[in-house]
């Protein structure tokens, strides 16, 4: 009797495991088109290339030994203990090579690798070099990083391992690309999708635990703080319900992302809502590249169909559906990215001042007055000094209400 019961249990467990494996196999390994991965590769590459071009004039300010934070200070207060350009500088200094060629060389290698990644030329090698050079530069200027740099690191790392060159790539044209559709394309897509769901869920839940997102105060701050100031939103104070509804909408989109992005019925609505959220961040908070990169991720991971085309009827000429699909979605995405004010950033770059590599070393300066106590911000509120209105780039027609700064502290280089 005992043996029979045990055998029945074992048999049930085996059946359960078998069913679970079939479900996992279907979810993670059903052959998929590499089109979503190609759109991710090209979209991410284009955003990072544009970012590299507009940040390049400040390279020495951000990461140079004579930058805003001089080399030893930057290294002393670094948050991450990862390889940086400083390591390369030290290594090359033994060969008599100075800092500037190493820093510029790393930057050039990064841009060249990005171009190869976008073109899909030796895609994985290009992804590896892009990831490494991005890491080196990011670590060197780690106090200057924000969301776009962190997300770029994550997804460049993934691109090393995923078959994103299997379509819409020179590798494919040259016959070097892996098979498409493939089970590994599906697995890679699942990793990207789950990672995105986790990111939105964490972001949404942490916001939901925070009172200001429910009261609308967080929206008020996001739209009126000087570093994010793009338009005059001071009128929002007289309509707090609007800030509240906007805050709730952000919470709904972010916390609901991991659920409603999966069913076909709600997927399109959630993609549109998420893209709208990030367009809002780009336009109303001026975080163009963060907005753009997040749009790329959601469109690539959930917007581009990954199902292989059904078999063609006999006699019809073969078509490369992945290539066509990836090209169509890439063009759509690039049009969308263009709309996220990348053009404005590039126009700003044209007016860029050449990189300033001069400084006076800290040891050549003497502090002649002791700084004010710094444990707490000074209590008496000082009104915005005249310097605020003297800052460059103040939008002439955007006059703030009394008390708000006459211009955002960040010069707006938009057209």
């Amino acid at each position, binding site marked *: 009797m005992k043996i029979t019961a045990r055998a029945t249990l074992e048999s049930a467990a085996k059946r359960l495991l078998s069913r679970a494996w079939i479900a996992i196999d279907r979810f993670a390994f059903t052959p998929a088109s590499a089109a979503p991965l190609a759109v991710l590769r090209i979209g991410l590459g284009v955003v990072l290339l544009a970012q590299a071009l507009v940040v390049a004039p*400040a390279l020495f300010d951000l990461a140079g030994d004579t930058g805003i934070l001089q080399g030893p200070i930057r290294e002393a207060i670094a948050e991450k203990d990862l390889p940086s350009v400083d390591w390369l500088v030290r290594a090359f200094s033994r060969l008599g090579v100075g800092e500037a060629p190493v820093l510029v060389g790393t930057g050039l290698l990064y841009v060249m690798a990005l171009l190869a990644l976008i073109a899909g030329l030796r895609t994985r090698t290009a992804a590896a070099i892009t990831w490494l050079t991005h890491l080196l530069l990011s670590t060197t200027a780690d106090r200057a990083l924000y969301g776009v740099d962190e997300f770029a690191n994550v997804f460049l790392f993934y691109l090393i391992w995923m078959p994103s060159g299997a379509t819409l790539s020179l590798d494919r044209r040259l016959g070097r690309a892996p098979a498409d559709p493939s089970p590994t394309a599906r697995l890679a897509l699942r990793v990207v999708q789950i990672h995105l769901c986790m990111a939105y869920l964490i972001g949404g839940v942490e*916001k939901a635990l925070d009172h200001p997102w429910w009261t609308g105060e967080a929206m*008020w701050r996001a739209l009126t703080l000087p570093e994010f100031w793009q338009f005059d939103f001071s009128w929002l104070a007289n309509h707090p319900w609007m800030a509240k509804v906007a805050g709730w909408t952000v919470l709904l989109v972010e916390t609901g992302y991991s659920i409603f992005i999966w069913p076909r019925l709600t997927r399109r609505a959630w993609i549109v809502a998420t893209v709208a959220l990030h367009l809002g961040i780009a336009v109303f908070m001026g975080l163009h590249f963060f907005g753009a990169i997040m749009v790329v991720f959601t469109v690539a991971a959930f917007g581009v169909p990954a199902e292989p085309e059904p078999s063609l009827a006999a006699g019809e000429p073969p078509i490369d559906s992945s290539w066509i699909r990836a090209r169509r979605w890439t063009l759509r995405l690039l049009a969308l990215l263009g709309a996220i004010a990348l053009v404005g950033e590039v126009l700003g770059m044209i007016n860029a001042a050449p990189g300033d590599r001069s400084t*006076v070393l800290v040891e*050549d300066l*003497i502090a002649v007055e002791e*700084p004010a106590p710094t444990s707490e911000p000074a209590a008496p509120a000082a009104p915005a000094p005249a310097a605020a209105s003297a800052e460059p780039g103040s939008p002439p027609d955007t006059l703030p209400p009394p*008390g708000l700064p006459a211009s955002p*502290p960040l010069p707006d280089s938009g057209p």
Partner: protein
Amino acid sequence: MEGKVLSRRRKLALLAISGGQLGLVSMSALRVDLGAEGAIGRAAAYYSQLSGASTQYGFFSEDVGTLPRATFDVKEDDKTTTDTLETGASHEADFHIVLLVSSIFAVAEDAEVQRTVAASMAGKIFARHPTAESVVVRAQTYALPTMAEYRNGVRPAWEVFYEGTFVPREKIEAGEQGANGGKP
């Protein structure tokens, strides 16, 4: 890793690797300190940093905080002008510079380090104004009232949390030499 057909063993290996990666992502999200868990934990923490699995995603979750700004009063030719570190090269470049400037706030618990960071920033300003006699570094945070306070007439203000004056060593030494009649 490609191929139309994968063996079950290969699939299991790929699942384990993918699951491990996503597991690290979720542990970082739950703020588990892997570095405190011995050599393997430290290796996992280092790998997490390299791969970006340690990234936190709570952007703007602990309220939307303000970034400090730094202004520099430059005394030059008996005139005082105000400068900033932002170059106007591009919005994105300037945003990265603002983030870098905010490190003066991040190191606030150590006055000596904070003074050194401020001196480094002043160094850039002296390079732009080679004849400057002194530079006053003023770091400020933005005190934004709530919507209700704003309706009641409270207005935003910049609050100074650090102020320091810097003078090039050579100018002080030259001044001392002048006071000694040119004798060292």
